[in-house]
């Protein structure tokens, strides 16, 4: 009845249909295109920054003249980046990619669109809250981006914003304000996802019949709900330190550039790190869990057999979610916190690696006995397995206290988390885009260009991130404006050139992807309703689904992956099919 109520209200002017829409599908697409915009802008920043890393002090080619004219005079005089601008690009790249790119893509776009469909719901539980999430995210994100226009520029203290540096550096006030808005948006979304999953499931959709993707979004939403409030509070405290003269994080007696800092003192810089990482470690799992969910969906579909170890995967995800709250200080072994605490976080960190291995094992084992179709989405899902594996394995020497002494704050760390987040999450979400595109637009992306995109992307991503392990082992620190200013970085400097050229090439390989998306939306031909012959409920309605999604509420009769059942006429049985045909 709820859905009928909207349907009649939804007599849809352009504004209420596409802009201030209450429909989870429209909001999902709004998130999709907005997060793609932010991902491209964060990628653009790092492509600029990587020129300075590869060729320190040389003017940027192609766009150098443009940026030196457009930007304030002391940012890129003659097209050469200054350290101030370099640090802005670095801090904003991290912030935008994590908070405005990947989380909104994995949760806001994929979760919003697919989750209600997969559980057979007509919409999210709170459509207005859903709209509000988006309409906080967009202005919060634009505010973050617009901070480049401020005198002094954007935040330049790293995405981690360690105090006291962040409190004395320019740009941070707007960063904090934007973060508060973005976090509020995520919290509203999290409440909505949890309520929708628990209350809006179609008849017969028991928890044990939910697709893995729904489970992954549910665990993610719980993490967001519990981990973000401490960062929101911490950000407000830092904001107070900047604008209201408090000293939550500032100790007594600071002397900055020869001048005593005017602050009441008595605060503690490490407090910020605890509060920040209490969010930011669960955040890593917020980035990776939906990706695992997407990969599980595609693998079950592409192997034409039930997932191996459904219960083990779901149980591992829940376990990862819980453990992710007690591992945060492995980012802080050398922060000055008492070393005895290091042992505790060492042990929890090693424990949390076990369920991650379990998920990966189940996904690989799922291939056994399959009839594997190498479709474009399947290629991405398969590539996720070894590449995320590299990301996970290289976490080992960083999580181990003793070896972290040497590797902490080096390029090894950057290589590690980019293997997790880029070759892991982004690869999986690209695969998800190819997989669910027919659902979103009723049209299929071009297969040939999809494969070009796939092979180019995978090769270039490895070219960008693998050299970072070599640099890290040689001791190259992160966040250096000019790595060649230090002797121990000189030998491996050519690796920066390899990484940079791979990054620019990676961008070129995204052009076929973008053209493919927009060409198909406007010029593509309609495809069949269920092109992948998939079993889950999102394919039990029209593509794209009408307002309210299902003609009549579906009834669920079986688990999510009934592929290749013995004796069945075809190799898949939809979750809502009345009986085994």
């Amino acid at each position: 009845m709820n859905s009928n109520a909207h349907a009649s209200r939804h007599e849809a002017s352009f504004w209420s249909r596409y802009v201030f829409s209450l429909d989870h599908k429209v909001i999902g697409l709004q998130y999709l295109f907005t997060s793609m915009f932010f991902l491209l802008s964060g990628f653009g920043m790092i492509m600029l920054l990587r020129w300075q890393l590869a060729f320190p002090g040389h003017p940027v080619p192609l766009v150098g003249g443009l940026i030196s004219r457009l930007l304030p005079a002391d940012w890129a005089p003659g097209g050469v980046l200054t350290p101030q601008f370099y640090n802005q690009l670095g801090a904003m790249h991290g912030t935008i990619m994590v908070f405005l790119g990947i989380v909104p893509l994995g949760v806001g776009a994929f979760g919003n669109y697919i989750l209600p469909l997969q559980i057979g719901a007509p919409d999210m539980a709170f459509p207005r809250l859903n709209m509000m999430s988006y309409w906080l995210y967009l202005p919060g994100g634009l505010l973050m981006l617009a901070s480049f226009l401020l005198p002094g520029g954007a935040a330049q203290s790293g995405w981690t914003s360690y105090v006291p540096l962040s409190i004395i550096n320019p740009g941070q006030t707007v960063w904090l304000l934007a973060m508060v808005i973005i976090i509020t948006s995520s919290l509203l979304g999290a409440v909505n996802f949890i309520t929708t999953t628990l209350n809006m499931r179609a008849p017969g959709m028991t928890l044990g019949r939910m697709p893995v993707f729904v489970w992954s979004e549910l665990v993610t939403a719980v993490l967001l709900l519990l981990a973000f409030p401490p960062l929101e509070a911490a950000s407000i405290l830092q904001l107070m330190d900047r604008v209201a003269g408090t000293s939550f994080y500032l100790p007594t007696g600071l002397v900055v550039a020869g001048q005593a800092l005017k602050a009441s003192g008595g605060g503690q810089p490490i407090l910020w790190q605890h509060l920040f990482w209490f969010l930011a470690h669960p955040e890593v799992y917020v980035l990776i869990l939906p990706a695992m969910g997407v990969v599980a969906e595609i693998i079950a579909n592409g192997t034409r057999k039930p997932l191996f170890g459904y219960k083990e995967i779901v149980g591992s995800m829940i376990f990862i979610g819980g453990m992710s709250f007690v591992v945060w200080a492995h980012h802080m072994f050398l922060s000055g916190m008492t070393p005895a605490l290091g042992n505790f976080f060492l042990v929890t960190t090693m424990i949390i690696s076990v369920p991650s291995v379990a998920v990966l094992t189940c996904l690989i084992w799922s291939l056994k006995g399959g009839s594997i179709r190498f479709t474009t989405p399947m290629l991405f899902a398969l590539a996720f397995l070894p590449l995320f594996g590299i990301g996970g394995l290289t976490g080992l020497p960083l999580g181990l206290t003793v070896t972290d002494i040497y590797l902490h704050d080096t390029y090894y760390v950057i290589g590690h988390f980019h293997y997790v987040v880029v070759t892991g999450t982004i690869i999986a979400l690209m695969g998800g885009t190819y997989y669910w595109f027919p659902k979103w637009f009723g049209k299929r992306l071009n297969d040939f260009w999809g494969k070009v995109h796939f092979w180019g992307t995978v090769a270039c991503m490895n070219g960008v991130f693998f050299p970072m392990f070599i640099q890290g082992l040689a001791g190259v620190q992160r966040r250096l404006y000019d790595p060649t200013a230090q002797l121990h970085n000189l030998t491996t400097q050519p690796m920066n050139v390899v990484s940079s050229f791979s990054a620019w090439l990676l961008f070129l390989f995204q052009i076929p992807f973008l053209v493919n998306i927009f060409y198909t939306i406007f010029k593509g031909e309609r495809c069949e309703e269920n092109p992948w012959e998939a079993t889950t409920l999102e394919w039990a309605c029209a593509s794209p689904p009408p307002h309210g999604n299902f003609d009549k509420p579906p009834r669920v009769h079986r688990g999510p992956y009934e592929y290749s059942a013995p004796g069945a006429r075809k190799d898949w049985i939809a979750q809502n099919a009345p009986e085994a045909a």
Partner: protein
Amino acid sequence: MTPNYGWGLPVQASTFAPNIDFGIWVIHVAMFAIFILWSIFFVYLLIRYRRKPGVAADHGEGHPLKSLIPDFFVLAFEIALIAFYAIPGWSRIKMTTPPAQEANVVEMVAEQFAWDFQYPGADGKFGRRDAKFMDSANPLGLDPQDSAGRDDVVSINELHVPLGKPTVIYMTSKDVIHSFFIPEFRVKQDAVPGMRIPVWFEPTKAGTYELACAQLCGVDHSMMRGDVVVQTPKEYEAWLKSQTPQNADNPAAKPPENPANEF
């Protein structure tokens, strides 16, 4: 200096460097082995179970216990690493500090963008410091009134240490967080304003090594570097003697026989 650095790990030049490198090697060999074994299995599965006309997929779930075997091996490997490597190593390197009487003790104040060191001089006592005395001539903020600091030697961006015994550095920072990193010693520790954090190492080779900042500390973070000069005890003593203490000519640092001096 560059011969110390190459494509792999830098030269080992402290007592615990071999210990840290051992872990890095063991883990990388294990990671490589795990990755290769998985990849072979993965490629085999892709080829063996590719779609073939007339062959349906296997509906059976398989035995869930089989998938626990790799989990078990990973867990066993990690427990061994924790128990026999990480906890003993961590307690030796970070949880204990060599006692002051057996060590060479130095104080350090980091700042944007320099490392300021204070040596206790002949009396073995460090002079008091206070932020209110800090200026460009006195970067550490030594108290000119304190007689203990009269013979204290100060060096900027150049740390001298003797061979043959551990050096303990008590670190703090006057502005933002910095991180004390000497690649050849495999030593790293944050220097945090408002805290006094010890870091120690025992060099095993004379020579000059690079001291770098590993925590983003502002505009000139990449320029924040220094040299660590490891000398024989004799050379080290000679160097200390050759340095003029910062407050040597300061009449205020003499014992308080000059009551008229109001600072």
